[in-house]
């Protein structure tokens, strides 16, 4: 028994999260993600962005291989009234090695999970902030479990 506990104690120290702050921050982001997913209803497969419209409805846009978000065409997803967005603000490219977001030298910057980014790989449930818009990035990957829905 003592060996077992000694071993467990050693392992416990090796895998102990260094702080609970990160888990708390994640929980507050997940509250928003959960609310948006609940509003969106049944979601399609593949990478997509969810966001609240000006009328406070939840909208969903599929990304395909690439999506550019900005204030004017030729951006694919346009928010013409958002003066804090650059004309071409950020781009998401989806490929076999992951889904990458890239800030397109926007004036006010792009944030993922509150951190300003230039380029990074996205995770399922990441929050993207650009201008006054907040997007939830969702992707159901090949590793996702299909539920046994009847």
């Amino acid at each position, binding site marked *: *028994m*003592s060996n077992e*506990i*000694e071993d*467990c*104690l050693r*392992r*416990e120290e*090796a*895998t*102990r*999260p*260094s702080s609970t702050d*990160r*888990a708390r921050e*994640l*929980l507050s*982001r*997940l*509250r928003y*993600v*959960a*609310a948006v*997913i*609940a509003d969106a209803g049944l*979601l399609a497969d593949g990478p997509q962005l969810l966001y609240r419209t000006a009328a406070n409805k939840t909208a969903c846009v599929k990304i395909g291989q690439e999506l550019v978000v900005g204030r004017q065409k030729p951006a694919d997803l346009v928010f013409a009234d958002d003066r804090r967005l650059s004309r071409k603000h950020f781009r998401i490219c989806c490929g076999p*090695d*992951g889904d990458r977001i890239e800030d397109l030298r926007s004036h006010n910057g792009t944030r993922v999970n509150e951190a300003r980014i230039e380029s990074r*790989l996205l*995770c*399922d*449930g*990441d929050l993207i902030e650009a201008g006054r818009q907040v997007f939830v990035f*969702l992707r*159901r*990957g*090949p*590793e*996702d*479990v299909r*539920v*046994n*829905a*009847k």
Partner: protein
Amino acid sequence: MQVTSVGLLERMKDPEAHGAWEEFYQAYWAVIVRYAQKQGLDETTAHDVLQETMVALMRALPQFRYDPQRGKFRNFLLTIVHRKAMAAKRRVGARLQVPLDAPTHEGGLSPAERLADEQSPLPSKIIENQWLESIQEEALRRVREDPAIQGRTWEVFRAYVINQASPAEVARQFGIAENAVYQIKNRMVRRLREEVKRLTKEAEVAA
């Protein structure tokens, strides 16, 4: 800490019931982070696995129907956590450009084998053992940090059980009777077992 019942899992299936998955998150976040770290991921990436697991649950649970032939909710949960950890590992590997057939130091799996493992139907025995270890480690932390357990009680336990000092030596060091050393040990071991049982039970319940 609350014990999850069928009721909690049923409530988690309701997309409006935010309180239910928050309860689940509070109970399990550290177990999931520990499990992901056991797969060789750093703490930041382990939190990505936690995030992706929670989002996958939010999406999957409203459609989840319990099927006894497919096993317990724990298997469903562990399958999600494990696959998310393997996918994260693959992303990290891709960034580092590890050759696809290069063996790794964790369990000897090559990236190609891990890719296959990502889509395996149910967790293997090794994976289940690592999950149980994560639960035991988290249980130990909770017992150690339980404000109801005095620091001195933990120190006696540590001296006797972990550092393997003799009961007489521990009794002398802490100025207590030898019998008290045995009592503390029994109480702490019982408390640890209860905590492990509680955490294990949370995900044993079928939804």
